[in-house]
Every structure is written in C-alpha cells, then in structure tokens.
C-alpha cells in the first residue's frame, strides 16, 4: 500500500476516539486554567505567541519536537514487540556522551565523515545501554521496567563521573566536556535557536523507521509479537531475537537524540542532557499506540504545549510545569479512552 494511503488510513482508523480524547483533555486544561483565573482567549493567545510569533520560537519548538519524536520512537519500537523500554534517558545520555567523545577527540576528518562517525558512535552508545536490560530480560526474564530505569540512574552516575573527572573540559568549573570540533558541529538553521541541521538526520531516521515498520519483515514480526506472541511463535517468528533487536534499535534512537543535542544544540556534553524527556517518550508511545505517524502528531502537540508554557508564564503567570500536568492528564484519558467511551455509551444507552 502506498505510503500516503497508509498515512491517511492510520489517521482515520485511530482518528476519532483519539483526537476527541485529546480534545477533551485540552478542554479540561482550559477549564483548569479558567478556574485559576485565566480566560481561555488569553490562554490561547499566550500559547500561540510562544510558538508562532517568530521564526526563532518556532525553530525552538521544532528542535524540541525532534528530541521528543526520537525518544518516543525509542520506547515505541520495543513496545511494539512487547518489551518495555523506560531507559530512554539513560540511552540518550550514553549516546550523547559517545558522540561527544568522537566529536571532541577525533581530528582530521571532513565534516561529513566526522558527523557521520559521531552519529554512529552515539547510536552505538544508546544501543549498548539498551542491550544490557534486553539481555537479562531474555535470558533471565528479568523485569525490564525495573532494569531500564536502574540503567537511567547508572547512566547519570557514569557520565557524571566521566564528565567531572577524566573528560572535564580543562579549565571549566562546570561538569561538561570540551567543545566538539568545528567539523562535528551541526550548524544552526535559524540563528540563535536550538534547531540545527540535525533536523535532516531526524527526518531521514523517521522515514527509515516508518519504512522498517511498514515495509519490512522486522516491522511485521514486531507487530505480531506485540499482538499475540503465541501466534508469532506458531508462525515461525524467532521471538527472542526480534525482541532483542527491537531494544537495540530503541536504544540507538535514544542515543541519536542525545547525539543531536550534543552536536547541534550544545556542542558539548553536559549533565542532564535530556532533562527527563525519556519518560515523556514512553507515555507518548503508549498513547500513540506505537504508530510513528501518531507519534509525530502527539510529539508536535507536546512540543507546542511545552513551548506554550513559557508564554503562559510570561503573560499569565502560570507555572511552566503545568504542561507536564496537562500531558499526564492527556495520557491518562487516552490510555483508558476505550473504556471511558464504552462507559459513556452505556450510560447514554440506558437512558
């Protein structure tokens, strides 16, 4: 089936209940703010301005969206195959660090090669960090929710050590590496914004993931594994291998997110690179039912939400953390939307 048809079909099939639930959650958000004293009109204006008022702001929103998309995919691909990957934060950090190492210490390469190598290193770092929980899950049935979360803390500590001691930028008071070489920098697309040419890398990766998902046997087998693993086994799918693979790819995607932040936005590795975005990715994967297209849409919504809170705060004095509350409400509603709507229709029918 052609890609455009596939996109259309995805949106349509999931469409109604999904969109209406998000709309409901957003309405709830407006209601909450209204109760707090801010009229919806003002809220909308404030939110809109912080994203659309200038190219700079829009670029920042897109930049944020890129990170969100990648970490959401990082959770979604394993999830498709029935494996929980909550380790996005740790994989992002390791990926960022690996790419920083290549960016800082490898010299004499033309930009294309340097960036390419750094990207590969970053993806490898993320994949490695995901491989450990994947392995203990497959060999020992160890609960991967716990192990991936533990790996997050370990990543923070390991990179914390590395960046405070052996690899600290000489003469710097902060925990960070030296700046990466010129040849490894992804140039800014909009002046002074966070958005870099990493955009192209992410677009390419997204297309690749869509391709894997829709058109390859991998995507097919993951889909079946996640839906009915007995059926998958019956049909001859090598379940353990595919699950492991899905985790590796998830880790690589999160590692890529870290790489882009390092090479494109910060130009060095700093602590708390992702700022906890990994968990958001998990939740987006859940509500988008692991579909790349829906992930794209929801990531956009969440990125705009995050951005809006800056404007909401500046103009209306609403704390920026409100966005994570709203995000959580959206998620709770969407997760249970089938039950909620079933309950509502039952109520209506009884009348």
């Amino acid at each position: 089936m052609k890609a455009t048809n596939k996109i259309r079909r995805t949106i349509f099939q999931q469409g109604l209940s999904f969109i209406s639930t998000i709309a409901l959650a957003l309405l709830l958000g407006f209601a909450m703010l209204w109760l707090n004293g801010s009229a919806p009109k003002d809220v909308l204006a404030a939110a809109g301005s912080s994203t659309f008022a200038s190219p700079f702001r829009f670029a920042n929103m897109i930049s944020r969206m890129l990170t969100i998309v990648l970490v959401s995919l990082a959770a979604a691909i394993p999830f498709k195959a029935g494996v929980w990957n909550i380790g996005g934060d740790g994989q992002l950090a390791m990926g960022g660090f690996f790419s920083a190492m290549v960016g800082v210490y490898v010299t004499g390469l033309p930009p294309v090669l340097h960036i390419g190598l750094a990207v590969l290193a970053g993806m490898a770092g993320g994949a490695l960090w995901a491989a450990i929980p994947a392995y203990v899950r497959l060999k020992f049935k160890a609960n991967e929710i716990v192990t991936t979360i533990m790996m997050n803390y370990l990543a923070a500590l390991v990179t914390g050590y590395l960046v405070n001691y052996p690899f600290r930028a000489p003469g710097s008071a902060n925990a960070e590496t030296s700046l990466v070489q010129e040849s490894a920098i992804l140039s800014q697309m909009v002046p002074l914004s966070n958005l870099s040419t990493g955009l192209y890398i992410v677009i390419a990766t997204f297309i690749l993931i869509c391709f894997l998902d829709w058109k390859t046997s991998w995507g097919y087998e993951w889909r079946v594994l996640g839906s009915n693993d007995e059926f998958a086994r019956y049909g001859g799918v090598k379940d353990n291998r595919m699950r492991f693979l899905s985790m590796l790819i998830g880790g690589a995607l999160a590692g890529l997110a870290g790489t882009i932040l390092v090479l494109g936005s910060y130009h060095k590795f700093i602590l708390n690179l992702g700022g906890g975005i990994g968990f958001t990715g998990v939740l987006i994967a859940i509500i988008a039912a692991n579909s790349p297209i829906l992930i794209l849409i929801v990531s956009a919504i969440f990125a705009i939400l995050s951005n809006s809170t800056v404007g909401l705060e500046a103009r209306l004095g609403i704390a920026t953390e409100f966005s994570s509350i709203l995000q959580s409400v959206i998620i709770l509603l969407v997760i249970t939307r089938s039950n909620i709507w079933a309950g509502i229709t039952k109520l209506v029918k009884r009348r």
Partner: protein
Amino acid sequence: MTYAIETHQITKVFGDTVANDRIDLQVIEGHIHAVLGENGAGKTTLMKILFGEEQPTSGKIQIRGKTVKISSPAEALRLSIGFIHQNFTLVNEFTIGQNFALGIEPRKNLFFADYDKVNQKVQKILDLLDMPLKLDVPVGSFSVEERQIVEIGKALYRGAEILILDEPTSVLTPQKIEKLLEILRKLRDEGKTIIMITHKLEEAFSIADEISVLRKGNLVATLPRASVTKDQLIRLMVGDEPLSVVEKAPHQFGAALLEVKNLCVRSGGRDLVKNVSFEVHRGEIFGLTGVGGNGQGELIEALVGMRPASEGDILFDGTSVVKWDIRKRRLNGMAYVPENRVTRGTAVSLSVLDNLVMGHHYLPDFHQGLVLKQEKMESFALDIIKQYEVVASSLEINAGSLSGGNLQKLVIGREFSMNTPFLIVAYPSQGIDIRTTKYVQSELIRRRDSGCAILLVSGDLDEIFSLSDRIGVMYSGELVAITTPESTNRFELGQYMVGSRRNGQ
C-alpha cells in the same frame, strides 16, 4: 426415592449452537451418577449450569423437589452443591485448613481466626476420606491426587451434599484412580450425592449407580448401571448411524513422509504423550481421533515444534527434525491449521492482511532481503480471500471483526496455500457452515490426491471416517489403535476412544 437434582427441559444456547437441548436429568439422592459423552456432547455446559457458572436459556432446576435458581457459584454452595474443577481452586502456599476456611474463617476476635476450630473439622473430614494428610504443611507440597482429595474435602467442609466432579481422573495416574473411586464410594455411603462427568467407560462402569449419556446436546438415556452393558453405552455415546463417506478415489500410498518414533512428551511430572509411533505417507490422510485432552494437542505441538519432545524422534523425509525450530520445520514443508484459531491461529487485533501473511513472509517469493513485497502479498491475500470465500470487506479490517467461521476459513486458506508436502489440520470444521466444510474437505482430498501427506486431527467421527485413509485413536496419551475405515465402524472406534479396547485385543 428422592431426587437430589432434577432438571426439566434445560436448554442452553450459545449463539447458533445448542449446547444443551431440553435435558431432563434425574439424579437420585445418595447415588453416584455418571454422565458420559464425547467432547461437545454438552456435559460440561450442563454441569456449569448446575453450579451456577452458566444460566440456562430455558428450563428449570429442582433440588430435592424445590424449584431453585442457581445464579452463581456462591448460590450453588448455599444449596449444598459443590463443584470440583479440573483446575483446583486451592492456594498452594496455604495449609488444608487455611484453604478450606478461606472467606468463612471462624473468628477468635476482631483480628484473628480460630484455626484450631477449623483444623478439628478438617481432621474429621480427612478421617472420613481416609486420607492421612498433615494439617500444617502447604498443600503445594502434596501430590496431585492428594490435592484433588483436598479439593473434595473443601467442598465437604463448606457443606456440600451434592458433589459434581468434572473429569476427575484426567489428572491422575492409573494407580491413583482406584483410590479416588474408593473415596467417592465412601462418600456415597455417607449419604452424599455424586455426579461425575467422564468419558472413560471403565470408571463410569465401575463406580456409578446410574449412567446418563449425552450426545450432541441431548440426553440420550439414563440407565441403572446394573441393567446396561458397556457396548450398549458405547452405542449410545457414538450413535448407530453408518458413517458417511466422501467420494474419494482409492489411493496409492507414497513413501512415508512423516515418521514418528516412540515419541514421548512429559510435562510437570505427567506423561502427556506416551510412546507414540506412526507414519503418514505421501498421498494419504491419516485421521487421528480420540476424546479431546488425551494427548492429541501435545502430540501436534511436538510435531510442529511448539513443544519439546522428551523422548523419541520425528523424521521428515528421512531427516530427523526433532531438534529443529518452528521456522525451519515450516520452511522444509510443513503447515499447520491449529485447533484454536483465536489464541494461536490468528492475532485478532491485527488486520486481515497481517494475519494472512504469517508464515509466508519469509518465503523467498515474498521478500527481498528485509523488504516485504507489499503488492505481491496483497494480491496473494486477495486470492486467498476469494478462493476460500472469506467474508471480509477489506484487507485492512481487524481480523477480530470476522465471524468465527470466516476466521477459520482465513486460517485454512493461509496454511493450505503454502502448498506444503505435509499438512497438519486440527479440528478444521469446528464452527464452520456446511458449505465451507464441504469445500475444506474436498480441498483436503484434492491435496491428498496430488501427493500431500495430511495428518487430520478431529473428534468428529463422521469427518474422520469419511476423509481418512487410515485412522488412529488416542486414549490417555497412547495411540491405542491404528485401523482403516474399511475395517472398523463407529462402535469400535468408540470402544477405542473410551479405553475399552486396544489394538490387538
């Protein structure tokens, strides 16, 4: 003579199927009443109604002359009816007393229960059952037969006067069966009424006072054991009509494609498949039958690769495949239509296309490296839908929205279209309309004529009889007979199926 239980015209309909058809069962108080029947005869449904797990579509129930409504298992317990499930309702970490008293613990004070009181009662029951079991150990440490007795004891503790047991001997080794039957006799002598569902003729015969036979949802007869012979019962169970035969050419056996040698499958300490040996030749339909749960499922799983064989060998065209994984077996020419189309044969939350493509997607025709040949797969899927007349509005809809029959056609279409030299087909006509059944059956014949080796597993004797070139019967994990349609009849097959007879007797 009072009746402990009387049912009047009990009928239970599930969608299109009539599981129980106007059943008038009469169970005399203080007697042991065996309910015999093949799979699908309606025994379990009837018992579920008596225990409150199902509600009858129509009809009424009387307990000791009083009309009652058994709305739930709790209600059944209040009416002194106890049900011994095949899956025990015991908590393995608890002692006998803790299990018996779960939910109805006598209180010593606000926080604690009086287990001394409980254990006194437990000891009395254990003495009655003549089972010297320790009161202070977790029941998980007991053997299966001991736990079954505990399950019975639990019903007694909670005041059951009527005990219903569902295939109680299916989990027991032959040695332990006699002990259970003894206990049941003892309980009867104490005045309890016992209803036992079984398909094993010997046991029913050795223990029952009365025997009822169910067949295809109908109560065919209720007879005192003293006045009936085993052969009569078999005839009642399987019917008397001559078995229908489908037109097929007398065939030539080819070489043996599948050889099973001394196959054993063990799990959890039990022998599920015992020393089974047989062959399926090219151009032959080998029909394996038997009452469900006698090892057929496990045998198929071992052949396919979904379950490891404990002992023995499986040869495919002379090569031992017993260590191969599922994909390798499939790639080397095996396809499998499973018994359970929903849990194993499909993924109901995926699209029709996704379901049709399984097993084909790694065949050379359908992929180029990693990439699936989308158009080829779609046209292939459309072909299957057309050929097997699967009613589906498009390839994109959820497989779960298809009716049961259509789902089965989907599975059959997918597996048949692999055109493998060896085919395992389990219970193919379950839930399909007559027309499709005829089509499927003629397809099976066609493949057989073109040289396929087919292992057909079914409980439908008509189907087995008419399609098979040779017939095998499984009972209790063993292949107790290999015969041909020409040299046997329904009655004899029935004998094999209930353990009344084996090859060579």
